[in-house]
């Protein structure tokens, strides 16, 4: 770019160096402020987790007792395990199913696609408690055949119900962007349609699949109302537990400690992953770096 400047200036290029400098400082400040905004609540939770006192409004002393205490909180531990189990199953299934459903919906005529995409919004729009309630009533019909259905199974099904729409919503715009000739070209080369789908289309929309997966996990891990109505047999997740405790008692600061650990572990995991990728990349050539998302 630098070298070209003199030549394109004649064609109307203007010099923005000064403006760019101010803009780049402004940009940096804004990025920092927004990230701070996003993480503000997490930072406060972290402060609450290392506060020696259980009083949430005064910081007395730094203490890690609440971290040590997590393991002793049996109900909390059980709730955490349940949450992870349900969310991981639901996320994997939702990402997988949602992607293929999106492909299917995209293949429909425009008219019916609009209709089904409208319906796809209902689980996102509907108040959780309404969704939770109506799902429970539907699953109850199955109880005639499977009397012990309520528990892990119904919980996962309910989570699929509100996570799949997010996956579809993320994948759909990517599908529209893919070149329709891509499929045709592959099929002209003799590749079977489903193979072409997996080998050609899926890689082209993977950014959408990935963000769909993140959204699905995010929605699933933090759901209360839908989970409450569709769980059973003591299979309570973390949100149900938190709500139930604040109904009559106080939350133990170990909950904040767990939250902080979750964030920290993910951050460390991400950094580690990045570090390992770098090391690998050092050996490979630069070509791969054009892949924006490497997973």
């Amino acid at each position: 770019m630098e070298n070209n400047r003199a030549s394109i200036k004649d064609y109307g290029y203007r010099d923005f160096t000064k403006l760019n400098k101010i803009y780049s400082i402004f940009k940096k400040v804004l990025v920092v402020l927004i990230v701070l905004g996003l993480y503000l609540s997490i930072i406060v939770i972290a402060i609450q987790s290392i506060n020696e006192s259980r009083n949430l409004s005064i910081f007395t002393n730094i203490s890690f007792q609440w971290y040590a205490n997590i393991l002793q909180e049996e109900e909390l531990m059980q709730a955490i395990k349940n949450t992870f189990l349900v969310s991981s199953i639901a996320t994997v299934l939702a990402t997988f199913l949602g992607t293929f459903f999106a492909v299917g919906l995209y293949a429909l005529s425009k008219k019916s696609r609009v209709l089904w995409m409208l319906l796809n919004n209902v689980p996102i729009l509907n108040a959780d408690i309404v969704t939770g309630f109506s799902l429970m009533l539907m699953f109850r019909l199955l109880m005639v055949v499977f009397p012990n259905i309520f528990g892990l199974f119904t919980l996962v099904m309910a989570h699929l119900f509100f996570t799949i729409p997010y996956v579809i919503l993320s994948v759909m715009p990517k599908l529209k962007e893919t070149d329709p000739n891509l499929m045709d070209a592959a099929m002209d080369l003799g590749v079977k349609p489903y193979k072409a789908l997996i080998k050609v289309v899926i890689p082209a929309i993977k950014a959408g699949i990935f963000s769909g997966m993140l959204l699905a996990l995010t929605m699933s891990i933090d759901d209360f109302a839908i989970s409450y109505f569709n769980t059973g047999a003591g299979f309570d997740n973390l949100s149900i537990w938190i709500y139930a405790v604040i109904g009559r008692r106080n939350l133990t600061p170990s909950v904040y400690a767990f939250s902080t650990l979750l964030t920290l572990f993910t951050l460390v995991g991400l950094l580690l992953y990045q570090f390992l990728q770098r090391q690998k990349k050092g050996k490979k050539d630069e070509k791969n770096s054009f892949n924006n998302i490497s997973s």
Partner: protein
Amino acid sequence: MNKEFKVLAKPYMVWLSVLVFVPIIAMIFISFSNLNSSISVSEIALSLSHFKLLWESSTIIAFRNSLIFASATTFICFVLGYFIAYEIKLSKFKNKFILLTFVILPMWSNLILRTESLANIMSENNILKSIIGFNIFGNISGTWMAVLFGLVFTYMPFMILSVYTALEKIDYALEEAALDLGLTPFKKFWKVVFPLSFKGVVTGSIMVFLPTLAGFAIPKILSRGRIVFIGNIIENKFIYTNYNHGALLAVVILIFILGSIFLLTKFDKEGETLL
């Protein structure tokens, strides 16, 4: 796309029909009937008596609050979220996967914990004040500013993710071409990049607008119970087992919102931007 793939949507159509259509029809029925938990089948009658709830001043105010806050939140999320998404795209950091996860990571902590911690530092005497000696927010606890702040920074990751997904594949050659044609960087952004990413903005707006509109926990906690959203009313109706009113409100909102989205698609001439 190959028409053969239509079959992939079939299971989802069945799933949606059973789990969305049937409950909606049931809800419409409930909102017209006197059905409640302690009534027997023979006493069921249809009536319009529940509809006067819709003209109740608290219902109208709550609905207005929801619409205003959801619109404002969506707009602010769009401006700030787009900016962040664009920065992520421009960033030299190769592994965007990590940046996106970083953006959404706060949402993995429980919503109640996050919101209560915000409420904590927005009030007069709080934990942060006891450390740094002053209030970063002043004393905005209980005001609309507190609610808006909470909503924006809770749902912004949805916008960032959607917009980034759309920006991700924009060919740099296009941007270069635009510059070569003499567009200023701003014009380049406005004429080339933004239109190409508009689908992501629409998706992101849906993902921010809808949950904000139906939500109840954030307004309840951050306004200290003083700003009522329609979600709060539905929640209360269902909890106090007034399913008739709860179902009525839920259905009215569903029809209102889905109807507006549907109308938008009608006005969308090319028919490809939305949905």
